């Protein structure tokens, strides 16, 4: 099973919640997080798209991988409220870990993912100590600086990473020893979907747990949380570490399914675009990350073919408009519409 990062997520989470002095009964009772019908429909969409758009499997796989990456940022930014401008660092670490393992002859995909999660998670843990020290500006700078440092490191260490030319010569072994990664991307599709779904279930569980609730509390008022006995720094570190590990898995997935790692996996544009996808979809609701990634990448596939410079202009304009007029992104807008149509209706989606 590749439910990595989730076991330690919960192990990190539950004692932390216990530390808040919750009674034993409250600890044992799980929060109510039943799946709503709309969510089940949502997850049938990628399955349906496999049969409806067989020519676009590669693009759909990439959307799912980047969606997973955006999910990891949603945990850090949408739930814990840490503004990170260097999240690509962990994505890139995961990609290079899986890539280097594969180039050196260890092509087994699942263990490659686990290794990537471990490396990115450890890096995330180390960075998290720096992140919790400062306020927004210092956090922004630290994450940005670490991202740039890793980019420079990968660039200069050409003997290991291939530098600007990228890391090629990867050979990913068949999944479970049975399913070869084919040219049409069928195996890659199911593999990406499976990993995305398993991690999504874990993250969904995590954000609905007392730990997830406390993260939201920290986001809304970091100064008040210590007053009710929450160890703010430790929670932020745990959230950041999990986010980094998930980002590492996303990077490893991209490396394994495309069998190539380019230097751009670590670049600043990747971190910035990730932020854009997340706010486009809507932060702090998990599904926003997936919707945002899908809309962004389909639009990019369409428009960037015309002219990359125009694409950048429109992305900039879109960001400014979202910030000024459409806070909450696509899902936030839909939620408002639903509320207008049905006064007193519950929250849509998760």
């Amino acid at each position: 099973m590749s439910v990595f990062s989730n076991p330690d997520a919960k192990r990190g989470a539950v004692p932390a919640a216990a530390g808040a002095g919750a009674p034993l009964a409250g600890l044992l009772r799980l929060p109510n997080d039943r799946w709503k019908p709309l969510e089940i429909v949502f997850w049938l969409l990628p399955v349906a798209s496999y049969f409806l758009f067989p020519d676009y499997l590669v693009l759909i796989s990439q959307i799912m991988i980047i969606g997973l990456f955006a999910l990891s940022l949603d945990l850090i930014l949408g739930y814990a409220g840490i503004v990170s401008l260097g999240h690509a660092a962990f994505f890139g670490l995961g990609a290079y870990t899986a890539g280097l393992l594969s180039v050196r002859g260890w092509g087994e995909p699942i263990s490659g993912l686990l290794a990537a999660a471990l490396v990115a998670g450890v890096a995330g843990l180390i960075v998290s100590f720096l992140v919790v020290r400062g306020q927004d500006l210092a956090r922004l700078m630290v994450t940005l600086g670490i991202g740039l440092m890793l980019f420079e490191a990968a660039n200069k260490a050409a003997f290991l990473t291939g530098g600007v030319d990228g890391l090629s010569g990867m050979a990913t072994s068949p999944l479970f020893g049975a399913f070869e990664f084919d040219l049409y991307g069928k195996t890659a599709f199911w593999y990406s979907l499976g990993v995305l779904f398993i991690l999504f279930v874990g993250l969904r569980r995590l954000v609905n747990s007392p730990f997830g609730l406390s993260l939201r509390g920290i986001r809304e008022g970091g100064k008040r949380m210590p007053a009710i006995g929450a160890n703010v720094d430790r929670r932020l570190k745990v959230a950041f570490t999990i986010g980094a590990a998930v980002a590492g898995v996303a990077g490893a997935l991209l490396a394994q399914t495309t069998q190539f790692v380019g230097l751009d996996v670590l670049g600043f544009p990747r971190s910035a675009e990730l932020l854009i996808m997340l706010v486009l979809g809507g932060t702090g609701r998990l599904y926003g990350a997936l919707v945002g990634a899908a809309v962004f990448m389909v639009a990019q596939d369409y428009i960037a073919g015309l002219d990359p410079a125009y694409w950048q202009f429109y992305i900039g304009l879109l960001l400014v408009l979202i910030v000024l007029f459409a806070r909450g992104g696509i899902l936030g807008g839909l939620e408002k519409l639903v509320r207008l149509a049905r006064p007193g209706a519950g929250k849509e989606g998760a």
Partner: protein
Amino acid sequence: MVGNLIGVLFDGIAYGSLLFLISVGLSVTMGMMNFINLAHGAFAMVGGYVCVTLLATLGVPFLATLPLAFIAAALAGLVLERLLYRRLYKASHLDQVLFSIGLTFMAVAGATWLFGPTQQPVNLPDWLRGQVHVLGLDLGTYRLFLIGVVVLVTAALVLLIERTRFGARIRASVDNQVAAEGLGINVSRVFSLTFALGSGLAGLGGGLGIDVLGLDPSFPVKYMVYFLLVVAVGGAGSIKGPLIAALILGVFDVAGKYYVPEVGAFVIYTLMVVLLILFPFGLVRRKA
């Protein structure tokens, strides 16, 4: 070796003073309005392109282009502040970051469309080229000129902020907006003018810096981290902090690139992370 060291130090100071000139406006607006503006480099770029265009197509003398670069960037800053920035002073830092990344992307795309993706050449007048011989050392004339300009501008800035009524209003608005408003200071106008002044200084720096930093459409992204760094390390809201930070960063960056070129930009990023860990609130903390 010693001559080398002094040469590197000199180049570093010149580079650092340029960074300071561009970033000081960012420091004041960040300290004053608590606004994280990642698009600050775009104003420097505006100044740079104004200089290049005036020099190349209209034949305006180099010295005359500099005030025009200042005015153009200040106007751009004033308009954007009035139309857009002011709506976001109360917004979350995330919104501000996203908004200013959006502006930066638009500026980069716009500059590519207008001027093409290539580096812009700058033809300095003859008297600014070459080297001068001072106390047995060969110093670049242009860098000496650069340091001179920055010293003058800094002196004027300090006088403006410490000795004039407008400066007193700026300081009052930085320290306590509500009280300043209560005393009859038009804080929103002070904000606009300060923002314009900061953008103008960035534009001046952009024009002065073409020879040192280069100028192409990716300028705002390439140097974004340097400007932010100066403010984050120096401490937002002051002049002294960014000055010290800019000089330290300038000297270390030049020294790193000169002595250990294989490590490249690593020196500066490491220095930044270390400084931020040691001083999470900046070298000089503004007194409330």
